[in-house]
């Protein structure tokens, strides 16, 4: 079994209004050293299969569903888990 941790964020060329609002809020908290905020989505999937097959499958799942690649990018980490952790 593997656990895939998937991170989806806007492409750098897309202005993300929610991240801008968070940055404004941080400056109201007097955290003036926060230069940039990235806001996104986080998913965890548990899958069985060989590592190569699972990696390919998660990539397809991200591309086809979890991210809209017209405006978002994604990355993911795969970690092996035992049946107990699953």
């Amino acid at each position, binding site marked *: 079994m593997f656990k895939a941790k998937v991170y989806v964020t806007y492409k750098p*060329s*897309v*202005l993300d*209004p*929610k991240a801008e609002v968070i940055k404004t809020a941080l400056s109201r908290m007097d955290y003036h050293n926060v230069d940039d905020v990235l806001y996104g989505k986080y998913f965890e999937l548990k899958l069985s299969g060989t590592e190569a097959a699972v990696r390919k499958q998660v990539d397809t799942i991200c591309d086809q*569903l979890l991210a*809209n690649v*017209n*405006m978002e990018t994604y990355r993911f980490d795969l970690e092996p888990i035992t049946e107990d952790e699953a």
Partner: protein
Amino acid sequence: MKAAVISFPGSNCDLDLQWAVQQIAGADCELIKQEQTDLSSYDVVMVPGGFSYGDYLRSGAIARFSPVMTALKDFADAGGYVLGICNGFQILTEAGLLPGALQWNRDLNFICEPVTLTVDRADTAFSNQYRVGEQLTLPIAHGEGNYYADPETLAELEANDQVVFRYTDNPNGSVHDIAGVTNAAGNVLGMMPHPERAVEALLGGTDGLGLFQSLIQQTKGADIRGTR
């Protein structure tokens, strides 16, 4: 003209759209469900506004997997006319039937107000009853209507003249003020403003009626009714 409006779970502009097409513009218009797999008997298929599947994940992201969407892709590939309004526009971009994507409005507000559009193209199936440069007032009602396309896609759709409607005073941050855009072939249009909410004086305006009259003219299956 024989039209269909797809009702997804969570669609809420489907009956308004059917009313506008049938009772006001005077064409046949059926409500169909997301399970339908054959659209070959229609000239025009419309994807209405609303919150299909609760907008889970992203607006339109889940509706894309409905059985009717495979049929809709075949229908569009065969040259059938497809109109997506608001959530319908979001669904069509998610399904890859239109370029780009819709993201959160620039100011994060859900905006519900009449806006002014300028007609950029009056030679499409959806806009042949308008004039280039004509200004239309149509309502918008969306939180995620901020149209985005990457610079290459944007250059391509401008070069192909795919932009049909632009906001005169951009309410949501859409690139190039885009309010309505077609696919490269010109038989699929997506737009955030609601033409079906502007088809009777009682509703505050009739500027949306021309869109349905354009489709009737294009498909030549019914007499044009209603007055703008």
